[in-house]
């Protein structure tokens, strides 16, 4: 079996398991890429994942970077298509369905009921990210200010990111 096909299949299996996105499939991704296929070592895996987290865009782009590391541009394409296509087709089918049924009385509580779960999970990723980023008093101060800024104003969050980067440059 060609390498590209293997990459496509590996990420294709991950795609439909990835409830909750990139962080949720991280352990399974590690098992497949490092242990089963031996495409990279531990250190490379974690560095590539951190890199995708630091860059803008969906965190799932970690899969694309890993595909690139394994087999160049073609590997990037195979990993991205494998990771995104199955889930995208499902999401498309479901979105069409909920849109057509949007008048149905029984659907309202179903949509309403998932709202708090969605918000709770956002809060949890915030706490987990803060735990990883809070390495000293300065980073905790940045976290606090940025939380208040985004919570209390409707200005673009880019300002706090730029501010955080500048403070890090000056003081860390």
């Amino acid at each position, binding site marked *: 079996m060609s390498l590209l096909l293997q990459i496509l299949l590996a990420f294709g299996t991950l795609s439909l*398991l*990835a*409830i*909750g996105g990139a962080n949720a499939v991280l352990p399974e991704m590690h098992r497949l890429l490092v242990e089963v296929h031996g495409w990279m070592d531990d250190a490379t895996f974690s560095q590539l994942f951190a*890199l995708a987290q*630091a*860059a*803008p*865009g*969906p*965190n799932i782009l970690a899969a694309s*970077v890993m595909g690139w590391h394994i087999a160049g541009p073609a590997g990037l394409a195979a990993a*991205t298509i494998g990771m*995104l296509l199955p*889930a*995208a087709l*499902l*999401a*498309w089918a479901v*979105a069409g369905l*909920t849109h057509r049924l949007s008048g149905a009385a029984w659907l309202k*509580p*179903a*949509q*309403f*009921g*998932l*709202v*708090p*779960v*969605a*918000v*709770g*999970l956002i*809060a949890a990723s*915030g706490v987990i*990210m*803060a735990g990883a*980023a*809070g*390495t000293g008093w*300065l980073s905790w101060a*940045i*976290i606090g200010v*940025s*939380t*208040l*800024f*985004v*919570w209390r104003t*409707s200005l*673009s*969050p880019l300002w*706090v*990111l730029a501010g*955080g*980067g*500048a403070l*890090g*440059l000056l003081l860390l």
Partner: protein
Amino acid sequence: MTPSLGALGLAYLRIGLTGFGGVNAWARQLLVEEKGWLTEQEYAETLGIAQVLPGPNALNCAIGVGVRFHGAAGAMVCGVALFGGPMALLMGIAALYDAYGELPLVRAVLTGIAAAAAGMVLGTAAKMTGKLRPSLPLLLVGLGALGMALARVPLPAVVLGLAPFGLLAAWWGMRR
């Protein structure tokens, strides 16, 4: 208000390129606050469904938003726009990181940005909670999701375990 296909594509291109620390906070900011294409409630509902489905939330959400306004074409445009920009950028960053990633200066800037991004996600959660004004049962479901996720309960278990309670709380809230 229905945005044109082009406006939707541009919006998602921007969401992808600005989306540090995951794109959901940025998508909410642009779609709800800046453009007013979706209400807080509509966005939260779309995100809720996106999180239950497998695959990246951001992509599921983009597809949901795209289908809502422009059917299959909208889904395609939003999805491609969301990934196209950051993917190109990431290739450049990966190359730069290989060359300069170990410099202390670069490390310090990245640490500051990571801290600000964490605060941004926390602030978004606080803001959404304030605006949605959940009933007490719904609030408890939300806190349950937060607690379970922090206890590193596997995500499918969190979602499937809490969904019935969420449905019950929503149904109870609507009956009154």
